[in-house]
């Protein structure tokens, strides 16, 4: 029997290693087949400029974004589930994702993001924050699963409607087609600039969420017990809400809505850490990054003439999982 502390360190190292492998594979996979030799020789010889550009300007930003966005989604999912003590909580189900997309759409199509670049991720943060606050206010903190999901659905739908409204007002008739991107995100043709925009907001968000790990562990025994153990529930609520918006908002603003990662990942990890909601956080973040990187590799390997949207893959995995969870919960209630 390995002591839990050591086991945790092993898991973290194993997950990091796995993520490293996914990252490298992600660099090797693209719409053009480049052998690792060609890639390597291209990187170190000035002559093959196109290979260099493909590597530095296209594949590297894409792989990095996949890791960062996946980490954000996995981590936020774990924190939301721990905080709400609700296994169905997730940034998508609770509407943060749609809210962030709405905020980003508003700043992008009104031209605000052109005037001031940071407006795009900030829009994502504010949109996510707005919807999350409304859901939490409507449903209350210890709300039942049903209330929470219904509130999430209601606000997601509202945000979706506002997105299409804004797109319809754009003077460019092609803008309406952009809705596909905002509803089903993608990492295609993103650039390193997107990462530079998102990271400065995402990193403080991660820090806030990771800081909650002790409080989330204490919350296992309910809010009053956690408070009696010296945790300020007000502070935790603030950290969770603002941290989630900061982590997810910019991610969604540069990639569009990518659903279900935050829902699936904590469930896969929870048995490994024997249910500990604190230890779940780092591992869920890393596993989210792995899941998103793998999905993005799959998206690039399946060639259907036109690249599949990343959000399609995550939803194809996530939606049946969601049904499975609902079914399991229903069985437990009966």
């Amino acid at each position, binding site marked *: 029997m390995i002591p839990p502390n050591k086991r945790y360190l092993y898991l973290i190292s194993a997950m990091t290693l796995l993520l490293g492998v996914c990252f490298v594979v992600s660099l090797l996979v*693209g*719409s*053009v087949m*480049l052998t690792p030799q060609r890639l390597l020789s291209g990187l170190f010889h000035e002559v093959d*400029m*196109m*290979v260099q*550009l*493909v590597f530095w*300007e*296209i*594949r590297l930003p894409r792989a990095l974004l996949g890791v960062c966005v996946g980490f954000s989604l996995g981590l936020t999912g774990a924190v939301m589930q721990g905080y709400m003590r609700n296994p169905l909580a997730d940034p998508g189900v609770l509407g943060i994702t749609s809210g962030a997309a709405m905020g980003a759409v508003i700043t*992008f*199509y009104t*031209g605000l*993001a*052109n005037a001031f670049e940071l407006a795009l991720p900030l829009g994502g943060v504010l949109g996510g924050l707005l919807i999350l606050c409304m859901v939490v206010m409507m449903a209350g903190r210890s709300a039942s699963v049903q209330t929470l999901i219904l509130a999430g659905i209601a606000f997601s739908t509202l945000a979706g409607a506002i997105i299409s409204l804004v797109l319809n007002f*754009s*003077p*460019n*008739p*092609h*803008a309406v*087609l*952009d809705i596909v*991107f905002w509803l089903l995100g993608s990492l*295609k*043709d993103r*650039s*390193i*600039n997107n990462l530079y925009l998102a990271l400065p907001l995402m990193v403080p968000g991660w820090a806030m969420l990771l800081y909650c790990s002790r409080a989330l562990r204490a919350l296992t025994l309910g809010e009053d017990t956690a408070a009696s153990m010296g945790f300020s529930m007000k502070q935790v609520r603030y950290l969770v809400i603002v941290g989630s918006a900061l982590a997810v908002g910019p991610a969604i603003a540069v990639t569009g809505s990518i659903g279900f990662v935050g829902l699936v990942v904590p469930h896969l990890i929870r048995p490994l850490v024997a249910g500990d909601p604190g230890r779940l956080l780092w591992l869920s973040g890393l596993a989210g990054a792995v899941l998103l990187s793998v999905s993005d590799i799959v998206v690039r390997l399946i060639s259907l*003439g*036109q*690249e599949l949207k990343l959000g399609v893959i995550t939803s194809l995995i996530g939606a049946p999982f969601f049904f499975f969870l609902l079914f399991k919960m229903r069985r437990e209630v009966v």
Partner: protein
Amino acid sequence: MLLQVSAFLIKLQFLILCVLCCCICSVSAKPLRIISMDPATDTLVLQLADLDRIVAVRERTQDPEVSLQWEKALQLITLRNEMAEEVYRLQPDLVFFGPWSNRATRNLLKRLQVPALRLQTPKNWEDVYANIADVGNALGEEERAAKMSASMRRRLSAIEKRLRGQPLKRGLFYIGRGHTYGKNSKAHFVMESAGVVNIAAEKGIVGLGMMSIEEVLMSAPDMIIFSDYKKDVPTLSRNVLDHPVFPHIANRVILTEVPSNKINMTDASLVDCVELLAKTLYPHLFQDFPTAMNNYDTSE
């Protein structure tokens, strides 16, 4: 031979249509209340028919970025949507539809026995000439139409003569969201006439297709042609074109823009595009060509 036959058949069809139209509406051979429902046909009709015979065009045609005939369009009634009731209320005696027109509207107007002509997207220059001739016939302006086509043929053959025997360069059209045009597209035959080998067609793309930035870079193009359509209005479709990788290759690849109010038309503007591309790609051959270049702005 086959082409001529098909062109003849279309003309024959038209003749019948015109006859029908005469019988039903009992007006003179020349229609006087013309409505056009697509920016490309609008632009053609505005060039071939006198303004007082035209009742309405599409609203977008008033936009200088959409049509070079926008000033004329400003004086007309405009249609925002393709609603049949909107059209019928204006009592047209001839309606032009574009290739992407609304089927329900077409069917309804047909049942109301409004004479109509639907133009197809041209797949080659002969289709363009046939479209121009069809519109000319329908309008009763055969002479103007023939003049337009003849001038286009003359300008194209001049370009062809200069390009003969030259080693050809490779390029592709790259428009929003990573779309590109392969065989059987307007962009394809325009490029062909400008002496550009279409990389998208080489890859087997027919009509509209997709290429990722990675594929574009690795296909070693000499020229990438962008569209300037609404480049200042933020849409995600521009994200691909504004990707920071393009300024990096600006010193090795010619990045150029074609005006969208020319490349989307079915008239002499297409030849303007050919001249533009030819002059951009082979400056030494076309020094004396007057057309101004429209260079891609690499400075963000």
